[in-house]
């Protein structure tokens, strides 16, 4: 990281020799600050929109077959802080959020949203991170191999496979894998959450379409890089093909992949909702869907807020990383 920082500093010196160093630091601080402020704005919009969208839904969280007596309903509304004018409720909720309190779930009585998320979120995040690593690693590897063998059979097969993986939704890939590797050839468990083996199928299902997308991205960008002059120089120096591609080519060709990492995290987190459903994994996705179906407002808002915070935060990190890798963004953004 430090080395990168120094390098971007050097590049800055070359492109803008007349600017003093503190201007560079200033730009960097402004860049990071700007992104952080937009993070706060986005989160505020998300919280507000979710809160009011839930409140305009017809049908409250306590609607059952039998109508509750007015007294009990009043008590319930009071307990879950759903009484009083809507604006007061809204500001109260904002206040609670600032204290880190996501309130009580109306469906899972007596459990707070904080507890539910503390139990289920680590599961989703583990699954997501493993899929993240598989998708990035396999995608970059496949894409660069395909680019190195442009128009060869490896390239054709890999790219057809990639388009196939993009076209197949995860709830087709998942059950197919289950039919194959858990039922016809019982090698792996059908679902659930326990040892490492139960992780393999869900992680593969989740990662497949994004590995494919990254492979396409890497291939396109690698092809462009390989036509550059400095690659010809590297070849002329007598470096072998592997060194040319992985040492010189990949450094530049990886940039579009890095800018895709933010959206990738978002897609994995939402995609894991379906994968958790297929494989019976007790993650946050299941609670998210059930909160939508049960009108469980605070649980829904809690999941949305936590997801958005994770994603926007991750995007911020990726942006900053990208700023270091490609300082032109810092300078001319």
């Amino acid at each position: 990281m430090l080395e990168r920082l120094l390098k971007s500093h050097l590049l800055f010196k070359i492109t803008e020799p007349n600017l003093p160093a503190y201007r560079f630091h200033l730009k960097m601080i402004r860049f990071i600050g700007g992104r952080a402020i937009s993070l706060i704005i986005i989160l505020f919009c998300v919280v507000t929109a979710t809160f009011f969208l839930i409140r305009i839904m017809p049908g409250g969280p306590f609607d059952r077959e039998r109508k509750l007596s007015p007294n009990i309903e009043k008590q319930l509304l009071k307990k879950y802080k759903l009484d009083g004018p809507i604006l007061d409720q809204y500001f109260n909720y904002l206040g609670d959020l600032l204290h880190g309190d996501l309130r009580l779930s109306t469906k899972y009585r007596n459990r707070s949203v904080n507890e539910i998320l503390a139990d289920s979120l680590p599961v989703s995040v583990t699954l997501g991170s493993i899929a993240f690593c598989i998708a990035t690693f396999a995608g970059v590897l496949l894409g660069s191999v395909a680019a190195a063998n442009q128009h060869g059979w490896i390239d054709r097969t890999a790219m057809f496979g990639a388009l196939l993986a993009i076209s197949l939704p995860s709830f087709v890939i998942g059950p197919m894998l289950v039919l194959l590797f858990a039922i016809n050839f019982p090698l792996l468990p059908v679902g659930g959450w326990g040892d490492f083996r139960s992780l393999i199928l869900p992680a593969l299902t989740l990662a497949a379409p994004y590995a494919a997308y990254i492979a396409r991205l890497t291939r396109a960008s690698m092809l462009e890089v390989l036509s550059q002059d400095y690659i010809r120089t590297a070849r002329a120096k007598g470096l072998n093909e592997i060194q040319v591609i992985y040492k010189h080519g990949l450094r530049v060709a990886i940039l579009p992949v890095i800018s895709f990492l933010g959206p990738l995290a978002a897609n994995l987190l939402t995609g894991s909702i379906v994968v958790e459903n297929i494989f019976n994994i007790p993650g946050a996705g299941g609670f998210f869907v059930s909160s939508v179906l049960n009108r469980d407002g605070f649980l829904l808002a809690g999941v949305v807020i936590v997801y958005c915070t994770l994603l926007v935060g991750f995007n911020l990190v990726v942006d900053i990383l990208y700023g270091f890798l490609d300082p032109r963004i810092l300078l001319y953004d």
Partner: protein
Amino acid sequence: MIDPRSPITKLRRNRAVLFSIFILAIVVVAAVIGPMLLPTAQVTRNSLLPPSPDHLFGTDLNGRDLFYRVVLGAQISVFVGVAGATVSFLFGTVYGLISGYSGGSTDAAMMRLVDIFYAIPRLILLLVLISALDPLIRQQMERIGVPQLVGYSKVLILVLCLGLTEWLTMARIVRGQVLSLKSQQFVLAARSIGQTHFNIIFRHLFPNLLGVVIVYLTLTVPSVILDESFLSFLGVGIQAPLASWGLLLSDATQVINPVKSYWWLLVFPALAMSLTLLALNFLGDGLRDSFDPRVKK
């Protein structure tokens, strides 16, 4: 005379694209006239029959003929895909045109809004929007007195919500094109003879964008179909007795168990959906490679 570099020739040479068009034609024909040709009484007392000459694709848990369900699903999935993509096309194009044409601070503000929407995961937004708006729309429909349409309120809400969450990329592409187009001579000429802004935008700029926009429209359709099936899979989208491919697949995963695999429930809807999406993606890629000047061969 055949110009080897013309986009049409390039497209004709691309066998994958021709094959995709063939598959899509079959799917569309099946979706449009299939449900009319097949007898409506497709319910038997035998649930979970394997494929046979009587029931080509077998029957499902409730004894419904799976072939009929898949065709019905094609109808709704394709309709939602095309209609949703059209909504996103209308919204995204108008937004991008206005943003790019105005320039300056209006443009900056409008693009900031697009950035904010980009940061919110689309499917989370969709789940929240649909669960909030669906009961409202249903209430309104019952109030106006079109009860026969209430069953289709889900389709309507899906089209609207999917369209309204898919327009971002379209808006960005259109804006980029407008930015480069608006400094060209013909815009200046149009302005100098006193054309209104409205006319310049819709009669001069818009026709020039159409090529690029149509290419990205082809790529939006599979994405909308995929989102619809995702929502139906989770139980928020289309509901029985209607069918969509996502719903059929969701039914299929529910009956998978290690003792007996009802493979036909999974394989046939999956095949229909994957073939359609693959064909659409191939077509979109082919169109982009032939028509988009930014893609170099």
